[in-house]
């Protein structure tokens, strides 16, 4: 009897222990990069505290960019730095507790019309400029969807949906990240120059900066209120990603270039960013009072710490050497980005007080 008990216990521990040790080994792999992001982000926060009227966001990203591009960053930092979007998503879910549900729906609702215009402009401009510069149609589609919807994740899911080439996806992603990295510094300057309100700046940023981390960062670089609005507007773009990718897949399927889409509902669900559900749930919990205002402010500060890590990661992931890889996709990408930026600015200027 005792033997039997002992055996069961041993076999259970044999199953659990290797799993835990594998998890520990896997985690260890991420530690250097995560520590680097913490150090760079905190350095940005310290520098900003010495400079009046400055936001830590830009310093965290700028220091990250310098570290990445001025030094040859050892490869063992890469895995940890690549986790920056996980911290961003946790931060965005926590930020949900700060925003009342009715506020989220009113910002998202008034933004959705502008989102439709913005996405159409991006896809059409990319197709047009792509033709002029002689880009492959699929690369132009990737640029259009990436710039129209939400940067990296839209490009990745479109790549598989229209069976585009990996290299094209890499180009399109690099273009968007670099544009966002440059606009991080240009947008707040332009916003102050023109005298935009927090609301208008938040809408403009959320509509025209494509990578979610960069859009959130640009919003917060202007002000906290602008950051909150930019986040919600950007999330409403992310939410429609599935629909746009599906339409793109159907377009290529109709031309007989790719296979048919079998189950449209499953296709849409698989492309819905799930952290949006967490964001809305936290907003709902705060609205009904399950999360009290004092608890919401703890969660809000947690999101600031998480964004600090994220923004350092964005800087550390920005590799200017990628520009040498090929100039044509960048020209088309920057052309489309500029058109989208001007059109969304006009929309915001006309519609948002």
């Amino acid at each position, binding site marked *: 009897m005792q033997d039997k008990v002992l055996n069961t216990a041993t076999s259970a521990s044999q199953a659990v222990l290797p799993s835990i040790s594998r998890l520990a080994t896997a985690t260890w792999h991420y530690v250097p990069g995560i520590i680097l992001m913490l150090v760079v982000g905190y350095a940005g926060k310290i520098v900003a505290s010495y400079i009046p009227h400055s936001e830590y966001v830009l310093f965290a990203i700028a220091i990250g960019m310098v570290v990445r591009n001025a030094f040859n960053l050892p490869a063992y930092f890469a895995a940890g730095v690549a986790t920056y979007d996980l911290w961003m998503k946790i931060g965005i879910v926590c930020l949900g507790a700060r925003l009342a549900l009715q506020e989220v729906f009113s910002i998202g609702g008034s933004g959705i019309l502008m989102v439709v215009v913005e996405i159409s402009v991006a896809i059409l401009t990319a197709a047009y400029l792509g033709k002029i510069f002689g880009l492959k149609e699929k690369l132009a589609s990737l640029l259009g969807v990436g710039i129209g919807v939400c940067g990296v994740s839209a490009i990745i899911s479109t790549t598989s949906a229209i069976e585009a080439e990996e290299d094209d996806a890499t180009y399109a992603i690099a273009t968007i990240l670099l544009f966002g990295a440059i606009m991080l510094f240009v947008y707040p300057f332009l916003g102050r120059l023109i005298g935009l309100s927090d609301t208008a700046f938040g809408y403009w940023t959320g509509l025209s900066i494509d990578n979610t981390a960069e859009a959130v960062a640009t919003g917060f670089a202007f002000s906290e209120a602008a950051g909150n609005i930019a986040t919600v507007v950007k999330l409403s773009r992310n939410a429609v990603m599935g629909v746009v990718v599906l339409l793109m897949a159907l377009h290529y399927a109709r031309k007989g270039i790719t296979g048919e889409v079998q189950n449209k509902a499953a296709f849409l669900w698989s492309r819905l960013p799930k*952290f949006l*559900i967490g964001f809305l749930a936290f907003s709902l919990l705060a609205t009904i009072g399950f999360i009290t205002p004092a608890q919401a402010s703890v969660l809000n500060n947690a999101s600031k710490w998480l964004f600090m890590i994220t923004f350092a990661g964005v800087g550390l992931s920005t590799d200017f050497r990628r520009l040498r890889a090929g100039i044509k996709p960048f020209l088309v990408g920057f052309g489309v980005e500029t058109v989208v930026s001007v059109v969304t600015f006009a929309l915001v200027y006309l519609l948002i007080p």
Partner: protein
Amino acid sequence: MAWWTKISKDWWAVIAATAFMLVVKAGLITKLPW
């Protein structure tokens, strides 16, 4: 593939944020300086 890779990054983000929220809800963290 290890089991934790079968759950997407997005769901891990929701799980982590929920765990943190429950810790705050339980009163274990009452203020967090920024």
